[in-house]
């Protein structure tokens, strides 16, 4: 193939695109459905963890088979009877539940950021795990909540601890209210064995589990505001991860914060170091109530500080490549971080020896303005950011 040939093929391919667009005059399917189409596989991607903080809390995880148990093909219009076989199929495949029915489990439509997500609680989950709705009250409530008109309760916790050793910890689904009683969640309701530990983070009980073989670590804890937190990491020790969680909690001053870890990510030298899941959340930052929090993000390749608002939203900045030790960064910490207004969009001002503002420009590009540029222009980096936007 010569350059002329490739030139010809490119020109033909360009014409084909325009032809395809020209003949496709009908509108696409619902963009909402499209977005769900993006969300579902993202969640299904192995070991992807999505943490949304603030407001209604949706906590979705996947197991190694890639089944997104938090959205098992059940839509908001699906009745319990219709949904049960679907959910049963998953649980049966996973070997955790032989049957699902109104008397054996509870199906609960829960409002999350993307709409409703149906989850099921196997009947052998201790009643104490049904936060705020123990025993018969929970069953009655869940049996009623089989349609989109049910916006509550979102106060349900499902954790698959059936093997008592948390070998399948990644199969857990949890949907919490903002004030989960942690003691009910795990410390009283379940017996842990094997590699599970119960460290203390800032005086609050936590749960830490190391996966045999992979070495990846799960950590659940409650931050100082009472918000349930989860982190998953690999390549670190349990002590480091616990220290990380403690750092985050200490810096929170009562505000919600999350840590997203994407160990399944792959580095791409041509890519901007912006993790796809967090980038999606970036879009939600417009017009949120600005309440600064700080956390740390690490996907095994790219590492950096993550800054969260109390309303659902995440923004990240201060990214480092794998050569940089994020824990060294934690040690020296970030002096100051706040969300700033950049002409109506949300930017992040980080001060860790120098100032940097990161924000999404109107044209979709993520831009960082650092103190060096500000010094050259003799103005505040926030002001430069506003000009760039």
């Amino acid at each position: 193939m010569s350059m002329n040939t490739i030139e010809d093929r490119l020109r033909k391919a360009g014409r084909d695109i325009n032809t395809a667009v020209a003949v496709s005059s009908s509108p696409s399917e619902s963009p909402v459905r499209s977005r769900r189409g993006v969300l579902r596989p993202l969640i299904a991607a192995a070991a992807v963890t999505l943490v949304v903080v603030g407001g209604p809390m949706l906590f979705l995880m996947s197991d190694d088979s890639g089944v997104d148990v938090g959205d098992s093909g059940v839509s908001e219009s699906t009745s319990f009877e219709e949904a049960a076989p679907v959910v049963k199929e998953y649980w049966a495949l996973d070997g955790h539940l032989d049957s699902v029915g109104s008397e054996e489990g509870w199906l609960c439509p829960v409002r999350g950021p993307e709409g409703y997500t149906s989850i099921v609680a196997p009947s052998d989950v201790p009643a104490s795990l049904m936060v705020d709705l123990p025993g018969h009250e929970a069953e009655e409530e869940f049996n009623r909540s089989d349609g989109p008109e049910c916006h509550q309760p979102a106060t349900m916790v499902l954790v698959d601890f059936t093997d008592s050793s948390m070998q399948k910890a990644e199969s857990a689904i949890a949907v919490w209210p903002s004030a989960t009683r942690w003691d009910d969640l795990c410390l009283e309701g379940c017996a842990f064995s094997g590699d599970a530990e119960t460290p203390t983070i800032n005086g609050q009980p936590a749960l830490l589990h190391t996966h045999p073989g992979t070495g990846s670590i799960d950590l659940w804890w409650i931050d100082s505001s009472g918000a349930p937190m989860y982190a998953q990491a690999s390549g670190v020790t349990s002590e480091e991860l616990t220290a990380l969680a403690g750092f985050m909690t200490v810096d929170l001053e009562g505000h919600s914060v999350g840590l997203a870890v994407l160990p399944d990510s792959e580095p791409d030298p041509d890519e901007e170091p912006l993790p796809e899941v967090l980038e999606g959340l970036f879009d939600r930052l417009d017009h949120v109530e600005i309440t600064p929090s700080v956390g740390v993000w690490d996907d095994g390749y790219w590492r950096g500080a993550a800054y969260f608002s109390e309303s659902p939203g995440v923004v990240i900045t201060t990214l480092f490549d794998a050569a940089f030790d994020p824990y060294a960064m934690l040690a020296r910490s970030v002096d100051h971080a706040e969300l700033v207004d950049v002409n109506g969009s949300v930017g992040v001002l980080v001060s860790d020896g120098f100032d940097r503002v990161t924000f999404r420009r109107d044209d979709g590009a993520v831009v960082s303005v650092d103190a060096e540029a500000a010094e050259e222009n003799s103005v505040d980096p926030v002001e430069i950011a506003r000009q760039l936007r």
Partner: protein
Amino acid sequence: MTILDAGGQVPGMADEQPPGPRVEGRIREDFDVFFERERKKMIGLAYALSGSGIAAEDLAQEAFVAAYRRWDVVAALDQPEGWVRKVVANNSWSWLRRRKAESRAVVKAVARGGWPTQPSDLPSDSEELWCEVRKLPRRQAQCVALYYVLDLTMPEIAETLGCSKATVNTHLRRAKETLVDRLEPGRET
């Protein structure tokens, strides 16, 4: 996500009417006219960079919604379509990046027989070519799409991407060299 109806109006945005038509002494193009004129071009650009017809429409719509919300500013630009092109190019690449994670999950799902693949609307030879284009570095892929789909000149591409004409030329040359290597290795370029 906002949906544009057939007439180019944005439902729920009745209170966000752009200001009057005259900007700095020239007649500013009405958004509806602009939308009708540019819509398919932008979908084509997004299609080339995303590889999905559904996503392309979403991406183009988002870019037009962004333009609509800032229409008083965008319309005053010499080339409002250039601004929208830039948004489409940026957001298409962001979408593609997210798609990579999605693809890994889809591979697993397809292996279980549970995930239908989306048929392409393009002839297979063109689809193969665009698949290879999307594997190129971001700027190279954007240059190829802007050049061969929108038929832009190099100065126009340079303005869209915020780089020099020489850089655009380099990106296009390297892109074609890579495509030749990948599509028919062993042949001289």
